């Protein structure tokens, strides 16, 4: 499931404000009545229970987890850290984390760069065929990325790229390009044309306008897309499995997947491993919270 569904920012003109980061509208805090609080608390509890269950299970041995539900842990605390330690060593997590970063970071930054340039061109430059080319990009959203596995693998095989880390992030770049361009272009279209015009009058080239004006103003959309793209690539199993496969270059997802034995035993390592792997995306999300709130509010959304 593609999580590249990133920050679709605004489809509407900005409100007249002096700065480009509007104050978010907020109903008075006192509006949070007990009804609201209860409903939210209930939802959060429902959301958390499965995670809690898995967390507890990751500290129990496979045999215990198979025979008694995790809610019985209070009566039978058979805590063990072996799931985590085995997942770390057998899954070669140290090296797998490095691989995951090596795969994810370029796969996040490069599409942003490339898509931003293209989006800029589609928004601010006039050229023949502009609408058609853009619609083609949008149209390609219908293509599921698993379609590409076969033909691209063949290509990689001929070029000798198979099994190398660039194989994966190049693939992620290709797969995410359509949505990235679509989203960034829509966001850029909401930027005030007047500012761009005046820069042009002042003699700035497109390159300068792009780097010094448009890009900084688009940071909210870029950041939001980056976060979702990071999540998608970090948690991806199939693209990595197919293009890089197991071995020295395996990222965390592939390493964890291999912990499960031929007969499906050893899934307890998977539960522990999932939590180990979860730390990074969670950290990114928590750390970038402010981008989310502020970023996506730039430009009031109008129907």
């Amino acid at each position: 499931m593609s999580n590249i569904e990133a920050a679709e920012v605004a489809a509407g003109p900005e409100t007249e404000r002096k700065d480009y980061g509007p104050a978010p509208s907020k109903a008075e805090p006192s509006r949070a009545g007990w009804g609201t609080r209860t409903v939210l608390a209930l939802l959060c509890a429902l959301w958390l229970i499965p995670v809690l269950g898995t967390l507890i299970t990751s500290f129990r041995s496979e045999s215990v987890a198979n025979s008694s539900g995790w809610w019985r842990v209070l009566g039978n605390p058979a805590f063990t850290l072996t799931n985590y330690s085995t997942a770390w060593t057998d899954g070669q997590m140290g090296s797998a984390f490095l691989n995951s970063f090596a795969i994810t970071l370029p796969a996040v930054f490069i599409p942003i760069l490339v898509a931003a340039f293209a989006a800029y061109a589609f928004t601010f430059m006039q050229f023949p065929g502009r609408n058609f080319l853009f619609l083609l990009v949008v149209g390609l959203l219908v293509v599921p990325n698993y379609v590409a596995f076969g033909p691209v693998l063949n290509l990689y095989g001929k070029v000798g790229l198979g099994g190398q880390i660039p194989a994966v992030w190049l693939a992620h770049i290709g797969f995410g390009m359509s949505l990235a361009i679509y989203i960034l272009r829509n966001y850029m279209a909401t930027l005030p044309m007047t500012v761009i015009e005046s820069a042009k009058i002042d003699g700035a080239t497109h390159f300068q306008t792009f780097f010094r004006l448009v890009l900084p103003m688009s940071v909210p959309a870029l950041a939001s897309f980056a976060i979702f793209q990071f999540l998608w690539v970090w948690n991806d199993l199939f693209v990595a499995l197919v293009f890089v496969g197991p071995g020295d270059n395996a990222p965390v997802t592939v390493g964890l997947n291999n912990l499960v034995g031929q007969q499906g035993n050893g899934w307890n390592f998977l539960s522990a491993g999932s939590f180990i792997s979860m730390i990074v995306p969670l950290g990114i999300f928590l750390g970038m919270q402010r981008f989310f709130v502020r970023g996506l509010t730039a430009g009031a959304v109008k129907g």
Partner: protein
Amino acid sequence: MKRSLRGRFALGLSAVLAAASLAACGGGGSGSDSNTVTIWSSVDAPVQAGLEKALVAKAKADGIKINWQSVKDINTLIMTKIAANDTPDIAFIPQPGVVKDIVSRGKAFSLDGVVDQANLDSLIPGVTDAGSVDGKLYGLLVSANVKGLVFYPKQAWDKAGYQVPDSIDALNSLTDQIKSDGTTPWCVGIGSDAATGWPATDWLETLIAKYGGTQGYNDWVSHKTPFSSDLVKQAAAEFSKLVLTDGNVYGGRSSIASTAFGTAGNPMFKNPPGCMLFNQGSFITGAGFFPDNIIKNIDQNVGVFGFPPATAGGDNPVEGGGDMAVMMNDSANVKKIMNYLSATDIGNDAAPTSSFISPHTDFDTSLYPNEITKNAAQVAYDSTAFLFDGSDQMPGAVGAGTFWTEMTNWITGDEDINTALQKIDDSWPSS
């Protein structure tokens, strides 16, 4: 402006240089170093550890390094990797059908002349058949598992004084006797998430092997004999009699498809036992299936006997599976390693610490960690032929597709047996 220009130029240049150095460092997946042999396998971690230890010791003298990777979905992955030109030197393939596919793509090398004949001769008869294509050997069985084993809770069994049956008829009588003694005879579970149904195929294959013998079995596997034939229907009828009869299976017929196969046998160890008989493969004695406290003293808690032949003392082939080493690179070093893998003693380190079973009849059985593994292995060594798991030899559409799903549909009662068998036949790919 000038400064940023230079900055960008420097960045670009360093990028190119870095790329070149990266290439020189050789950041690759499959053995870029000609003295390293890459092996991929999906065997369980303890088995791999044991085999690797023995292999590394042997290869040391030749100065060969071993890079052994655990690859979970090797059956599907290997085909993708062939397309990507990114294959290991040796691949352990658990499905003969996939071995055939690799050979048909021209990516496997024949083992004739590569491995010592003596090593091949010590294999259980029939082992080399599954790995051969057009008479040439491509897949060498290194690690085996035995199927068609019946496990029972030793203490309850001995207390009740049951005897190991020597024929299928005797097994029927034993089932009835257990039932009349007030215990549910069988535990059966075929649930396996996306692969639900495969244990039922093992049941059927065992029965077909016992009733049809080696020839009848092989004809069925190669589809010379269709699923709708009398042989298969006879096997299905026997399964139905033993397991689907009311009151014969723990949890009732309706629970079979939803009970996870790995823990399906655990009610055996309840007090009083939930059931007395559990048909599964030898892997079930490894960690993660039977409860830990049972495994700790496994020889006192669990007993095993081979599924009996159709007639007492008659033809008794055993069904089994395993991982076959396929040579995908014919360099001199890889050939040496293949030969080491074919030796009987390659399993000496793996046997005591894992569920490893050697396919060599001259293996030192004292190395097995417990009686139950020894007995399971002995079932194979005593058999008249080792027949590789049928569904693993069939084309994927059937062996990992309709065979599983139609068996499940039949067992849950959604379909009658004739419809199910016909559907499997219809799904056999025409080319």
